[in-house]
C-alpha cells in the first residue's frame, strides 16, 4: 500500500523531484521543466505570499490581543496612541513581560543554541537557506516583546517569518540557489506589503534589502507575492491605510530646498540612533547580569521612561498617526525623540526581540514635526505645512536607518496616496541616504553585521564563493609515483602524452611534482635506469585543501608564483587527491561568476556562449 503524502517534503520525494534514491540521479524531465519555468515560480510565489500575509495577520492580532489584555487598550488601538494608562501598569507589564521574554528566550537558546539567520544574511551567505523553527521562535519572542510594551517594531518578525516560511518550502522543493533567494525576497515582500497594505513598498523592500538587486527575472515573483500578501491581510482585517492623510498638500520651491537640510538632519538623527543602540548594547553586555535577567530590567527601565513619555511603548504606529494629524509642542517633541531613541536602544540592547523599522518611522515623524515647530519660530513667513514636513522626516529617517530609500518613498506614496507629498519626501530621502552613505556607510542591519564581524554589505549573494570549493573543480587525472621509481620504469608506465601530471610520493605522502615531459628530456642527466623520480621532482612549496574555496586558491597561486598546486586531504597527512592549475582555477572562477551573474539578471548566456552544467 502506498503511504499517503503528508508534507511537502513527502510530496517532493514521491514525485522524485530531486531524483530517486541510490546516489546522484539526473532530475526528472518534469521537475527540470518545473524548475526552469518562470510561470511556476510566479505561481509558487503567489501561493507562498498568501501564507506570509496570514503570518503577518496572526502576529499583529496577537500583539493587539496582548495590548488589550495587559494594558486595556481598545481593540485596534495602539499603545502609542496616547491612552492614559495606570502608572503601575506602565512599570509592571514591561518588566514582568521582560521576565517572560527572558525565560522563553533562555529555554529556546538551550534547545537551539545557534544564532538565528535573518533574511539578508541568508541571501548573502547561505543561498537563501533559513530555519523555519528559528523564524517561528523569533516571531513568538517578538510578539511577547511587543505585547508587553517593549519599544520595538514587529516588521523584523514579519519578514523573518515570511522569508523563513518561503525558504523552507523552496528548500523542500529543492529549488535552485537563485530561485530560493528570490523566494526569500518574496516572503519578506509579502510580509511588509501585508503589514502596511502597500504592495509596491513590500516589493521594493525585498529588492533593496533582501535580494540586493532588481531584475526582470525577480520582478514578477516578488510583486506577485507582495500582492498576495496585501490581499490576504486586506481580506482578513480590512483595508488599512497606514498613514492616511485627510487633505492634499501644497509645496513651494522653498519647501523643496528646505527638505535637503531636513534630510541631512534626518541622517544625523539616524546615525545617532544606530550608534546609540550599539553603545547601549555594549553597556548592557558589560554588566555581569545573566541574559535572562536583562529583559525584565530593561522592561522596568522602559516603563520608567513611559511614566514621562507613555508614547514610547510599542512600535509607534499610533504615535505616527497622532503626529500626522495633531501637532505636539516643540519641547515635548524633542523630549519624545530622545525618549524613543533611549527606549528602543534599551529594548533591543537588553534582549527584547524586534526591529527599528517602525521606530525609525515614528522618530522621523517626530523629527519632521520638530522642524516645523522650529521653522515657525525662526522663519514664520514660509508657513510650513506640518503634514508634509512630518512625512519628509519620516521617510528620511526611515531611509537613513533601514537603508531602503525607494521603499520609504513608495511607503509614503502608498500610505498617503498623495503624489505631491511623495515628491517632497523623495528630496529628503535622497539627501539622507547620500549623507549616511558618505559619513557612516551602513544601514542598521549591515551595521550590526559589521559589529559581528560578518563581511556583508547587503544582500548581494557572496556565499557562492564559499560553496565553490577546490574539491569541486580540481583535476583527478594526475598520477603518483614513488620517489624511488626510475625514469625508465616511468617511461614504460606513462608514454609521452599519456598522463598530464605526475606527483612523487614517499610512503604515501606527497613530496614533489614532476612534469611528465621531463621524462623525455634530452638534457636528462645520467641513464634512465639510474635516474629516479626523486631526482626529477620539484619539492612541493605549497598545497591546496579540497575544502578551501577557489578564491583562496587564486591567492595561493599568486603568493607562491606557481602555475600548478597539488590538492591534498590535510596539511599533515598530505595524501594526494588531485591538482589544480592556475589557468583552470581562473576559468572555473570566471565561469561561476558569469553563471551567477546570468542567474541574477535572469538571462542565460548573456555574456558569452559558455555552457555550464546545471546544478
Amino acid at each position, binding site marked *: 500500500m502506498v503511504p499517503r503524502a503528508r508534507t511537502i517534503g513527502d510530496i517532493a520525494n514521491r514525485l522524485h523531484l530531486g531524483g530517486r534514491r541510490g546516489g546522484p540521479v539526473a532530475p526528472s524531465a518534469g521537475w527540470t521543466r518545473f524548475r526552469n519555468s518562470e510561470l511556476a515560480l510566479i505561481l509558487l510565489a503567489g501561493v507562498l505570499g498568501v501564507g506570509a500575509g496570514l503570518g503577518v495577520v496572526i502576529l499583529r492580532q496577537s500583539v493587539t490581543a496582548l495590548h488589550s489584555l495587559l494594558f486595556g487598550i481598545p481593540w485596534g488601538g495602539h499603545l502609542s496612541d496616547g491612552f*492614559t494608562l495606570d*502608572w503601575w501598569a506602565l*512599570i509592571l507589564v514591561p518588566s514582568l513581560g521582560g521576565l517572560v521574554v527572558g525565560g522563553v528566550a533562555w529555554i529556546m537558546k538551550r534547545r537551539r543554541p545557534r544564532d538565528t539567520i535573518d533574511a539578508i544574511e541568508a541571501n548573502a551567505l547561505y543561498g537563501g537557506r533559513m530555519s523555519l523553527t528559528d523564524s517561528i521562535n523569533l516571531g513568538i519572542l517578538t510578539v511577547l516583546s511587543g505585547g508587553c510594551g517593549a519599544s520595538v517594531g514587529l516588521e523584523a518578525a514579519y519578514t523573518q517569518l515570511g522569508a523563513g516560511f518561503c525558504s523552507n518550502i523552496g528548500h523542500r522543493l529543492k529549488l535552485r540557489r537563485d530561485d530560493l533567494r528570490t523566494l526569500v525576497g518574496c516572503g519578506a515582500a509579502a510580509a511588509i506589503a501585508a503589514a502596511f497594505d502597500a504592495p509596491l513598498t513590500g516589493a521594493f523592500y525585498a529588492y533593496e534589502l533582501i535580494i540586493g538587486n532588481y531584475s526582470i527575472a525577480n520582478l514578477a515573483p516578488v510583486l506577485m507575492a507582495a500582492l498576495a500578501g496585501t490581499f490576504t491581510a486586506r481580506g482578513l482585517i480590512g483595508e488599512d491605510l497606514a498613514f492616511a492623510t485627510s487633505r492634499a498638500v501644497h509645496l513651494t520651491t522653498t519647501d523643496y530646498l528646505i527638505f535637503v537640510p531636513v534630510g541631512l538632519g534626518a541622517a544625523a538623527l539616524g546615525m*545617532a540612533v544606530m*550608534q*546609540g543602540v*550599539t*553603545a547601549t548594547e*555594549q*553597556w548592557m553586555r*558589560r554588566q555581569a547580569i545573566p541574559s535572562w535577567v536583562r529583559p525584565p530590567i530593561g522592561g522596568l*527601565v522602559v516603563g*520608567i521612561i513611559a*511614566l*514621562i*513619555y507613555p508614547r514610547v511603548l510599542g512600535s509607534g504606529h499610533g504615535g505616527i498617526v497622532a503626529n500626522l494629524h495633531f501637532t505636539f*509642542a516643540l*519641547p*515635548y*517633541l*524633542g*523630549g*519624545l*525623540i*530622545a*525618549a524613543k*531613541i*533611549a527606549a528602543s536602544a534599551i529594548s533591543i540592547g537588553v534582549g527584547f526581540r524586534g526591529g527599528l523599522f517602525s521606530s525609525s518611522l515614528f522618530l522621523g515623524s517626530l523629527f519632521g514635526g520638530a522642524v516645523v515647530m522650529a521653522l515657525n519660530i525662526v522663519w514664520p513667513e514660509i508657513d510650513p505645512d506640518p503634514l508634509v514636513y512630518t512625512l519628509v522626516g519620516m521617510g528620511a529617517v526611515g531611509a537613513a536607518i533601514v537603508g531602503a530609500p525607494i521603499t520609504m518613498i513608495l511607503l509614503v506614496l502608498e500610505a498617503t496616496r498623495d503624489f505631491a507629498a511623495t515628491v517632497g519626501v523623495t528630496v529628503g530621502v535622497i539627501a539622507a541616504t547620500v549623507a549616511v552613505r558618505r559619513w557612516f556607510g551602513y544601514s542598521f542591519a549591515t551595521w550590526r553585521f*559589521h*559589529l559581528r564581524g560578518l563581511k556583508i554589505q547587503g544582500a548581494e549573494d557572496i556565499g557562492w564563493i564559499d560553496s565553490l570549493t577546490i574539491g569541486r573543480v580540481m583535476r583527478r587525472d594526475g598520477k603518483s609515483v614513488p620517489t624511488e621509481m626510475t625514469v625508465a620504469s616511468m617511461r614504460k608506465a606513462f608514454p609521452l602524452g599519456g598522463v598530464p601530471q605526475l606527483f612523487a610520493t614517499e610512503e604515501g605522502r606527497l613530496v614533489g611534482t614532476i612534469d611528465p615531459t621531463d621524462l623525455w628530456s634530452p638534457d636528462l642527466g645520467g641513464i634512465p635506469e639510474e635516474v629516479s623520480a626523486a631526482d626529477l621532482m620539484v619539492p612541493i612549496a605549497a598545497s591546496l585543501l579540497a575544502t578551501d574555496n577557489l578564491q583562496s586558491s587564486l591567492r595561493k597561486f599568486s603568493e607562491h608564483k606557481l602555475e600548478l598546486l597539488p590538492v591534498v586531504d590535510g596539511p599533515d597527512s598530505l595524501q594526494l587527491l588531485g591538482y589544480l592549475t592556475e589557468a583552470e582555477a581562473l576559468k572555473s572562477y570566471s565561469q561561476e561568476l558569469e553563471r551567477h551573474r546570468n542567474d541574477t539578471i535572469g538571462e542565460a548566456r548573456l555574456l558569452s556562449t559558455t555552457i555550464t552544467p546545471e546544478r
Partner: protein
Amino acid sequence: MRKLLYAVIFAIGFAAFSVGGLSERGGEHDPWLEGGALLALCLGFVLGSVPRAWSIVPRAILPLPTFLLFLTILTDRKPELPFFAAFVGAAFYALFITSYASFLSHRNRPDEAPDVPV
C-alpha cells in the same frame, strides 16, 4: 574630540528628554531653579563622560541635580503619581544617567575603545 562630541550629543539628548518632561507638568514652577538643575545635569554628564581620573568628581555631583529635576517632573505628572513612586523613579533616573556617564568615560578610554568606528 570626537569622543567628547559623542558625550555632548548624549547630553543634548538627556537635556531634550528633561525639557520635554518639564514642559508637560501642571502648576507653577521656578524656571531659574529648573534651568540651573538642567545645566548642572548636562555639564555634569559631559564632564563625567571624559576619560580622565578627575571625571569622578562631576559624576559624584551628577545624581543630585538629576534626582531633583526628575522628582519635580514625576511629582507634577498628569495623571498623578504617588510620591513614593515618583521618588523611586527620580532615584532611578539619577542612577541611570550617572551610570551611563561612567560607562562612556570607560568606553572612551583608548585601551577600552570598542573595535568599531565611532
